[in-house]
C-alpha cells in the first residue's frame, strides 16, 4: 500500500508549482537571474582586456618612436592617454589612472638605426597580473613588425630590434595572490555583512516579534543602527583574520597605513550593512532576503574587477561596476596594501562608497515600515 502513487506525486508537484508562482520574488529571480547573468556577464566579462590606458614618456621623439606608439595603438591593447614627464607618469600609475607607462630613452632612434638594441622601459601596474599579461605579450611581437620594413638589419637578423624591460610595479613577481587576497577581503565582507543583516530584520518579521518591536516607541533609525553595530564588530574581526592570514600565509605586502586601511574597511562594512538592513526591510521573509543578497553579490563579484580585469569590460559595464562599493574597495585595498597609497591619491574611490551608503540608507529608512500598513 506504500507503493509510488502517481496521483499523490502529481499532487505534490502541482502544489510546488502553485507555491512557486505565488512567491513573486522567487519567480522573478528564476527568470531574471539567467537572463541578467547571460547578458550582463556574457558581454561584460573579458579576461583579455584591451584599450588599457597608457602614458608615454618620450625622451627621444623621433620617427621610430612615433611609429612604435602608433603600432601600440593599432594593436588595440593600448589606449595612449598622453605624453608626460617621468614624475607625472609615476603619479598616474600610483593613482591607477594608467595601466602602463612606456618610456622611450634618450637616443632611442639613433640606437635603433645603428642596430644596437635600445631599451624600452615598460612599467605595468601589476596589482592585477591578469590584466597586463595579454598586452605585454603583444608588445614583445611589435618590435619586429614595426621596424622590419624600414630597417634592413632587423629584417636580416630576425632578432628583436629593441629590448623590452618590463617592470611589474607593486607586484614584481606577478603573484596572483597579491591581487586575489585583498580582493577576497572585500568579497567576504560583502557576502557576510549583507546576508547577516539581511536576515536580522526578516527574522523578526517571520517570528512575529517585529510587531512587538513596532509597538514600542523605537524609531526606524534606532532599530536600523542598533541592528547594524554588532555586525560592524564582526566585520572588523573578519578583516583582522584575513589580514593576518594574508601576511603570514601569502606574504602579501603591507605598504600603506594600517589605520587608513581600517578606516576604509569600516566605511565599506557600513555601506554593506546598510544595504543588508535595507534588503531586509523590503524582503518579506528570510528566503527573499537571501535571494536579494545573491542578486547583489553576483555582479559585485564579476563586475568589480575581482574576478576579471575591470578595464576589460565595456564602458556600460564599467559604469555599473563603478556604482558597486566593492569596485572602489578593491582599488582602495590594493592601493593601500600594494602601492602604499595615501588618502590623497585614494579619495576618488572613497566618496563613491559614501554616496552609495547614504543613498541606500535613505531608501532603507523610507521603506522601513514603521506601521504595518
Amino acid at each position, binding site marked *: 500500500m506504500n507503493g509510488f502513487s502517481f496521483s499523490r506525486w502529481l499532487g505534490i508537484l502541482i502544489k510546488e508549482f502553485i507555491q512557486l508562482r505565488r512567491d513573486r520574488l522567487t519567480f522573478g529571480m528564476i527568470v531574471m537571474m539567467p537572463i541578467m547573468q547571460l547578458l550582463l556577464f556574457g558581454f561584460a566579462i573579458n579576461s583579455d582586456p584591451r584599450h588599457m590606458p597608457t602614458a608615454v614618456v618620450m625622451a627621444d621623439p623621433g620617427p621610430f618612436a612615433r611609429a612604435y606608439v602608433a603600432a601600440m595603438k593599432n594593436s588595440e591593447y593600448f589606449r595612449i592617454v598622453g605624453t608626460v614627464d617621468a614624475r607625472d607618469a609615476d603619479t598616474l600609475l600610483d593613482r591607477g589612472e594608467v595601466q602602463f607607462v612606456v618610456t622611450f630613452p634618450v637616443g632611442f632612434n639613433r640606437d635603433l638605426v645603428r642596430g644596437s638594441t635600445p631599451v624600452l622601459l615598460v612599467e605595468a601596474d601589476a596589482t592585477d597580473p591578469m590584466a597586463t599579461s595579454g598586452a605585454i605579450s603583444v608588445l614583445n611581437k611589435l618590435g619586429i613588425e614595426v621596424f622590419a620594413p624600414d630597417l634592413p638589419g632587423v629584417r636580416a637578423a630576425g632578432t628583436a630590434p629593441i629590448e623590452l624591460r618590463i617592470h611589474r610595479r607593486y607586484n614584481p613577481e606577478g603573484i596572483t595572490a597579491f591581487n586575489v587576497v585583498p580582493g577576497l577581503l572585500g568579497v567576504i565582507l560583502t557576502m557576510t555583512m549583507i546576508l547577516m543583516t539581511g536576515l536580522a530584520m526578516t527574522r523578526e518579521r517571520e517570528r*512575529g516579534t517585529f510587531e512587538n518591536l513596532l*509597538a*514600542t*516607541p523605537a524609531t526606524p533609525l534606532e532599530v536600523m543602527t542598533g541592528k547594524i553595530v554588532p555586525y560592524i564588530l564582526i566585520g572588523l574581526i573578519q578583516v583582522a583574520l584575513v589580514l593576518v592570514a594574508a601576511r603570514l600565509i601569502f606574504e602579501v605586502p603591507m605598504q600603506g597605513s594600517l589605520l587608513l586601511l581600517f578606516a576604509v574597511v569600516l566605511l565599506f562594512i557600513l555601506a554593506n550593512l546598510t544595504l543588508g538592513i535595507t534588503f531586509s526591510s523590503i524582503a518579506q521573509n528570510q528566503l527573499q532576503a537571501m535571494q536579494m543578497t545573491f542578486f547583489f553579490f553576483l555582479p559585485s563579484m564579476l563586475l568589480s574587477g575581482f574576478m576579471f580585469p575591470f578595464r576589460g569590460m565595456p564602458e556600460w559595464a564599467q559604469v555599473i561596476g563603478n556604482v558597486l562599493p566593492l569596485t572602489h574597495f578593491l582599488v582602495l585595498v590594493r592601493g593601500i596594501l600594494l602601492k602604499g597609497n595615501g588618502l590623497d591619491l585614494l579619495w576618488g574611490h572613497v566618496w563613491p562608497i559614501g554616496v552609495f551608503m547614504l543613498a541606500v540608507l535613505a531608501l532603507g529608512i523610507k521603506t522601513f515600515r514603521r506601521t504595518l500598513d
Partner: protein
Amino acid sequence: MKAAAPIIDVTGLNKRFGDKHVVKDLSLQVSEGEIFGFLGPNGSGKTTSIRMLCGLLTPDSGSGSCLGFDVIRDSARIKRKVGYMTQRFSLWEDLTIAENLDFVARMFGMARRRETVDRALEDLGLTSRRRQLAGTLSGGWKQRLALASCLLHEPRLLLLDEPTAGVDPKARRDFWEEIHRLAATGITVLVSTHYMDEAERCNRLGYIAYGELLASGSAEEIVRSQQLVTFAISGESGPGLAEALRKLPGAVLVASFGSTLHVSGHDDALLERSLAGHIAGLALHMRRVDTSLEDAFINLMQGSRDQFEMPA
C-alpha cells in the same frame, strides 16, 4: 466630580487593504477603568481595529483620540502609554525571560529598569526561572510573560488581542482575575476574544462582523437588543431534529448546547405554538429560558451574514 473620561473615543475609522474594506466606520467609546470586550468571527477586523487604536496602523479615514492623543497624528505618543499584547506570542524566544523584560524596559526608556524587571519577575513568580529561554515556556506562561512585558511601562490602556487563545482553563481564569485586578487600579482594558464566558466578564462588549461594529453595550443590553425569546428543547432528540426545528414558523435560530437545543425567535406566541405542535407525541419537552449571550451573538452573526451575502 470626575466623570468617566473616555479613554478611547474614535469615530468613523476606516481601513482598506487593497480592495478589501477591513474596518468600516468604526466608532467606539471606552471609559476609564472599563473592561471592553471585542467579539466577532475570525477575520472580522478585530485585530486591525486594535492595531489602529495603538498606532501600529494608520486609519485611511476617520478621527478620534486614544488616551487624549490623536490617533492619526500622535501615534508615537500613544505607543508610550499603551500596552499591546499581540495575538501571537511576539517576545523573543531566543532571549531569556529576564532578557525579554529588560529589552522591553529599555525600549520604553524606563528610568529604574533593573528594579522594574525584578519586580515584574517577582510578581510573575518567575524569579527562579529568569534565565530560562522564553521559547521553552508553556502556552500559559508565555501569555503571562507577554502580559507582564506590556505592563512594564505602566500603561493606562491595555489592548489585548485574543490573549487567551490556546491557554488552558485554569490559566484563563487566573488571567481574567489579573485583568479585573488591573481594571480596579484604573487601567482601561480592551480585549478581543472568542469565548462567551470571557465576554460575560467584560463590563461592555462590542460585536464586530465584516468590519462593522454591529452592536455594543453591556451583555444584557446586547441580549435585549436582539429581542429574542428562547426555548430549550431537551429529551430524546433524534438526528435531524435541529434541522426540523429550524424550518418551523417563527424559529430564527437553533443552537445546540450539549443535549439540549436552544430555539430562538422574535415572535413569542408563534414560536411557542409551532414548537408545541412539533414536539407533541415525541419524547421531548420544552421550557422557556433566558436568551443567552451566545444566542444573541449567533443571531447577530447570522443577521450580518444575510445582510452581507444578500444585500437588499
